[in-house]
């Protein structure tokens, strides 16, 4: 679609697993034409990772693969064969961008290192995503979500002081590094297009996390400024109410109190018990006895309401709050659905399914679902005929194990 922002960006995509495919997915979802190259036979390793459709392990039924590879065309190619190398060079000659996340050194050993590709296509942007970068003592090390979050991020401070540190959900840090790589690639493409500077981008998952700005980076600079180190555990102020509390149908989170105490009183319908001036003295926000008295009233109130009722009342009264939703509730949530966050994807092996959809709205160049994730080698015929190979050639390529 010509009205998508990146419709004129052509990407040759060698990525596998999570970070690389997350990167090229974001680009593809906003219009880039992505050709995903997979190893003949087995394909992207994510094809063997769960969850699977109806819990049936199958290379075309991995939910993770299906999600990460929307809007990409897929071909198979043996990069070690002479013919495979020739084909890939033809693709790269016509491309704007190459993204790869092999182990450092693999692209060079295939004759596809940046120095080679630059000769082929001087304006090319090549993004290499790796665990720790293309250089340095950890270059060949493996990584996990816990390592990325534990070495580059704030994991040390997450959890309770007397227990082991605990990570965030699933693989959110690794996924984030893919989104950072998409930004790096986007910026690289812009520089190539408008400043005439093709180049190699070396993105390390560790550095993407260490350079990410969250509470951690604040703590890093604070340490430089005055030597202070944060401790593990919740930072709970004396002010009330703060935290996650039970309600009639689950849990509700609120951060209130202090100067905004009247907002929470308002939310509770201005009960007579809270009219007493004792609640509004300068010392009241830090008084543990008052806190205990208040929390009894507050829990009595929350237990009479659902989380969505509390959210509506709390939000309208100017409180920072939210309902604690389970995933089925997220899928049904009217506000996310009214905004059109979710999308329905029809895939030959699973039928129609609801996926998380566009991460943000571009008013004039929208996110679009143009095609589901490719079956292994699904677009061989299409892509190879675009390169000028005939049907007979395709048969020969298949017979010789090139595709």
């Amino acid at each position, binding site marked *: 679609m010509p009205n998508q922002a990146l419709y004129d960006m052509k990407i040759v995509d060698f990525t596998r697993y999570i970070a690389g495919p997350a990167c090229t997915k974001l680009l593809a979802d906003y219009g880039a034409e992505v050709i995903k190259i997979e190893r003949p036979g087995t394909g992207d390793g994510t094809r063997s990772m769960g*969850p699977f459709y*109806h819990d049936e392990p199958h290379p075309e039924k991995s939910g993770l693969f299906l999600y990460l590879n929307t809007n990409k065309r897929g071909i198979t190619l043996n990069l070690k064969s002479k013919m495979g190398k020739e084909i890939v060079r033809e693709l790269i000659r016509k491309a704007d961008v190459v993204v790869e996340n092999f182990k450092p050194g693999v692209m060079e050993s295939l004759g596809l290192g940046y120095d080679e590709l630059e000769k082929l296509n001087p304006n090319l942007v090549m993004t290499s995503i790796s665990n720790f970068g293309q250089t340095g003592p950890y270059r060949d090390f493996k990584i996990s979500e*816990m390592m990325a979050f534990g070495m580059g991020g704030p994991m040390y401070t997450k959890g309770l002081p007397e227990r082991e540190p605990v990570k965030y959900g699933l693989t959110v840090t690794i996924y984030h590094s893919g989104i950072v790589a998409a930004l790096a690639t986007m910026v690289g493409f812009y*520089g190539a297009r408008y400043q005439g500077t093709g180049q190699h981008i070396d*993105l390390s998952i560790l550095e993407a996390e260490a350079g*990410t*700005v969250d509470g951690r980076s604040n703590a890093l600079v604070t340490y430089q400024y005055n030597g202070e180190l944060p401790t593990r555990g919740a930072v709970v102020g004396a002010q009330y109410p703060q935290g996650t509390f039970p309600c009639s149908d689950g849990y509700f989170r609120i951060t209130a109190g202090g100067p905004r105490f009247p907002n929470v009183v308002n939310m509770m319908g201005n009960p007579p018990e809270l009219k007493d001036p004792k609640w509004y003295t300068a010392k009241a926000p830090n008084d543990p006895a008052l806190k205990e008295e208040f929390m009894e009233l507050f829990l009595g109130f929350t237990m009479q309401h659902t989380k969505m009722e509390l959210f509506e009342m709390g939000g309208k009264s100017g409180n920072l709050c939210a309902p604690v939703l389970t995933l089925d509730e997220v899928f049904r949530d009217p506000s996310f659905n009214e905004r059109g966050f979710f999308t329905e994807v029809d895939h030959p092996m699973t039928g129609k399914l609801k996926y*998380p959809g566009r*991460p943000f709205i571009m008013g004039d160049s929208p996110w679009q679902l143009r095609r589901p994730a490719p079956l292994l080698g699904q677009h061989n015929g299409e892509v190879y005929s675009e390169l000028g190979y005939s049907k007979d050639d395709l048969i020969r390529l298949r017979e010789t194990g090139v595709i």
Partner: protein
Amino acid sequence: MANLPLAGVRVIDMTVVLAGPYCAMMLADMGAEVILVESTQHFPPQTRGINARPTRDMLRNRGGGYPDGDPGKRPWNRWAHFNVMGRNKHSMTVDITRPEGMEIFKRLVSVSDVLVENYAADVMDKLGVTYEMLKRQKPDIIFAKLSGWGDTSKYRNFRAMAQSIDVMLGHSFLRGYPDMDQTEVTTSVAEDPALGVQAAFAIVAALHHRNRTGKGQVLDLCLAEGFMPYMPQAFMDYSMNGRLQGTLGNRDPVAAPCGVYRCLGDDKWVSIMVNGDEEWKGFCRAVAEDWTKDERFGNPLSRQRHQDELDKLVGIWTSRHEGYEVMYLLQKQGVAAGPLLDEAAVYADPQLNARGFWVEESQEDSGTHLYPGFMWKMSKTPPVVRRGPVRMGEDNEYVYRKVLGIGDAEYEKLVETGHIGIDYAPHIK
């Protein structure tokens, strides 16, 4: 030297707290001229400090994020939380709540490419800063609006921060200890950086679209929708199988052992993840103890089933080694392992130092320190620190005189009326 990729792009930065300033810093790092618009008459929440002029007493014997724990003469230029996102930006001051200030702002819009903002929704509403208004100044302007639930959400006027949004996305059920309920799950603010990066991405994509079509646009991004895509395993499992995943703590559905284990030292930890038989063999070679031959640990399924026993034994082994020692021993055998690093330790990490990750930044009011550097390397246009964390109003001369072409008389008048300055007005405590 080649131009930085975004050279020639001017961005008006009206952002506060975290996601917005982070987005603006990345654009600045990549070569855009980012002009942070501030006001000496207003102190936005949690951006240049909790308070404009805190006393040492207010910091409750802690450093409060200030160099040497001292707020100094101009605390707003010395706050870590601001300064970590302050490099490579320009700053001007103008009070756009007054008509003459709004005129200045409109003139700036007319010579800019992008406006990025993440104030509470009613702030821009009340000021009349809408896409229609901006388009009248600059027909192809790109207007990036960052919020909690989105500009068209029914919750658009509710107060929003990552720590509250996080529980609304299902994330709080996917993290934390498996034996604890929701009231004990600590906060996550992962939504902020997710939004910041995607906003920068959307802005550069929109610049490309504008260059090609001549059209600007509104970019409507929010904390909630930016982060839900980070959890595809759980969303797809529900969509495909109706399953509600719960937290596994540090464990994994397949790999075992997989966790964080105590090491030699006080509160020191190392993470280890062993996936499949090849890695298990490597793990056994590194550990070289008899218990690794136990038949309960003989295959991946059995290791999953006996994780409690396995974790205890792994923990005994790690407790005799330092975190880095465990990392080198296991990585040599092809197993993912690495120490959990606190702020002091990560500055000393060999890999980050070998690659020159930390960068030195200097600024008159806060001094010279090391800061987290750039998230990626570029072979021909390496990002560099062109200027340290920006001081409020530091670039008034440049913006008013050079960018807007304002003469001496008008400049002086704007100084007298409190638009141009480098200090917050006395009424701001």
